[in-house]
Structures are given as structure tokens and as C-alpha cells.
């Protein structure tokens, strides 16, 4: 199905879904309260997005939010879709999608480890990459450490 049909199918059920610019690919932005119901709908019968490619986060300091990015692909319909939400920067809490896509367990652990976003109803939310006993969330833009040497400009 084409991009417009896909967008219309989503916007029939979720009135707040907004199409955003993503280099020509289809990207849909929703409120964070609706993310679990949207993803349940996406994995269901008409659309059949059965593969979650990845899930990451982007730290936006100016607007004080972090943006979660999910990417889906459907093998039967051969379409792809990106879903984005905004979460607050200080102690943001989002629903976990582990019940629908089991691969999200490790993706959400990585986002928790590096950004500090907490996922409700996650079976095992703990650090996955950094060493045990590490404090802090390294991929935040205001992370400071004695080992972290920033390069202000490569052309000094």
C-alpha cells in the first residue's frame, strides 16, 4: 500500500497522528500516551508490521524533550514506517512495547542505559552497555565526565 493510504488508515483511528518530514520516507508523530495503542494497531490485521527494525532516542536540549524513534517494516505488505514521540527530558516515562515485539527488550534497555528514559512494564530494565556500577547516562548532551574530552571545532 502506498504512503498516502497508510497515512489515511492511521489517521482514521488516531486523530492526532501528524506526518512529519523524514527525507521522503513516511514518518508519523503521536502523543506519548497513544504510543502503545498505535503500535498494537500497527502490528495487527490490516497493516501487519511484523518487524521492528530498531528503536532509539534523540536528545533535543533546546525544546527540553527527547524524541523516541521507532522503525517498522512489513514483510507481507513490503512497506516501512517510522513512528516518533516526544518525551520529557527529566525522568520521562513511556509505555514499553515488549509485549508486542520481544526485540524491544534490549532496545529499551539500551535507551534507558544511554538516555535515562524509563519504560513502564518492562520485564528487566537495567543497564546493558556500560559497566556495572556506572552512574550517569552518557548520550545525553549535558553529560560531563573527566574521561570525556569534547572537540569544540576541528578547525582551530
Amino acid at each position, binding site marked *: 500500500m502506498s504512503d498516502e493510504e497508510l497515512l489515511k488508515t492511521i489517521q482514521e483511528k488516531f486523530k492526532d497522528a501528524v506526518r512529519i518530514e523524514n527525507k521522503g520516507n513516511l514518518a508519523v508523530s503521536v502523543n506519548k500516551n497513544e504510543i502503545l495503542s498505535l503500535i498494537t494497531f500497527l502490528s495487527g490485521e490490516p497493516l501487519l508490521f511484523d518487524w521492528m527494525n530498531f528503536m532509539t532516542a534523540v536528545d533535543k536540549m533546546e525544546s527540553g524533550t527527547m524524541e523516541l524513534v521507532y522503525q517498522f517494516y512489513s514483510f507481507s505488505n513490503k512497506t516501512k514506517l517510522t513512528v516518533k514521540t516526544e518525551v520529557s527530558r527529566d525522568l520521562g516515562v513511556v509505555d514499553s512495547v515488549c509485549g508486542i515485539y520481544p526485540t524491544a527488550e534490549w532496545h529499551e534497555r539500551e535507551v534507558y542505559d544511554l538516555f535515562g528514559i524509563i519504560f513502564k512494564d518492562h520485564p528487566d530494565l537495567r543497564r546493558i552497555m556500560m*559497566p556495572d556500577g556506572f552512574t550517569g547516562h552518557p548520550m545525553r548532551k549535558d553529560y560531563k565526565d573527566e574521561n570525556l574530552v569534547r572537540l569544540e571545532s576541528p578547525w582551530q
Partner: protein
Amino acid sequence: MEERNFKMALLERVPAILEKVPCGKPIDDMVNMVYNWGRRNSVWPLLCGFACCAIEMMSACASRFDIARFGSEAFRASPRQADLIIVSGTVNFKIGECLKRLYAQMAEPKYVIAMGSCAVSGGPFYYDSYSVVKGVDKIIPVDVYLAGCPPRPDALLHALMTLQKKIDKERIGKNRWNKRYE
């Protein structure tokens, strides 16, 4: 550590005896030359590659750039049986703990070659990285530094030759691992 009672090996007492004998110095030089010749021509590295420089290390061990003609015929998987550790690749904090343990488990005499930019100084990950150790000499003492990203296999052979020249200059009984006898 200081309470242990060290007994000097027999060969390591030889220089102290030879100093007093009249024709001692040329004999001392000859003994050192033979001893070091045996050691420098059979440096056996540890079979442990860390990252991309390990590919160049493997290619130095293959047939085109043969490292076996320099004596490194056998790469030993156990640190207890290895003489040399070639730190070939980026070292994080997590793997740095393991590296320290591997170095501590090696028996003296032991040597370290820091291969590639990441092992020498953190390399391209010096800036904007929260997990890379900026130079492996913050963890273990290094004998030979080899620059490159990655260095060619012939550059690794040159580093091995530099290490062999360094071994030639050592004296029995006056090494850095005999310092506890002073």
C-alpha cells in the same frame, strides 16, 4: 610483597661474580649476547586481538608477511605461556580490566607492543568518547609504540624488530623485573 624471601636465580648472580674476576667484562658481554640472542629470536605473542588492528596482526602471521621467520612461530592462547602482548585495537574501560588481568598473569620477561592509534593514544576516539581509554599505557607499561590506523603488517614486523633491538640491550640481573633485588 616485601616480606617474601626472594632467591636470585643462578644465572642472575653471574654478573656480580664476573665483575670481580679480572677478564670478567668480555665474558659478561658474551654471556649476555648469547642469552639475549636466544630470547629475542623466540618471542611468542599472546593470541589475543582486540579490534581492527587484529586483522593486520593476523595478516602479518599469514604467509605473505610471515612473522614466523622472526621467531614468533607459535601464538599462545594462555597468558602464562606468552612473552609478548600485542594490544591491537581500541581498549574500553570494560576490556581494560581484562587486559590488566592478562598482563598480570603473564610471566616475566614480558613485553608489550601498542599497535595502532587507538592503543597508543585513543586514536580517533580521543574526542567525544565516554568509554575509550586514551592510550593503553594508562593501564599497562608499553615497550614499543606503533602508529597507524591500522599499521601495515610490515610496520608490525618493524615494531617486532625494534623490540628485538630493545631486548639485545638488556643485561642479566639488571632488568626492570629484577629491581626488587636492589
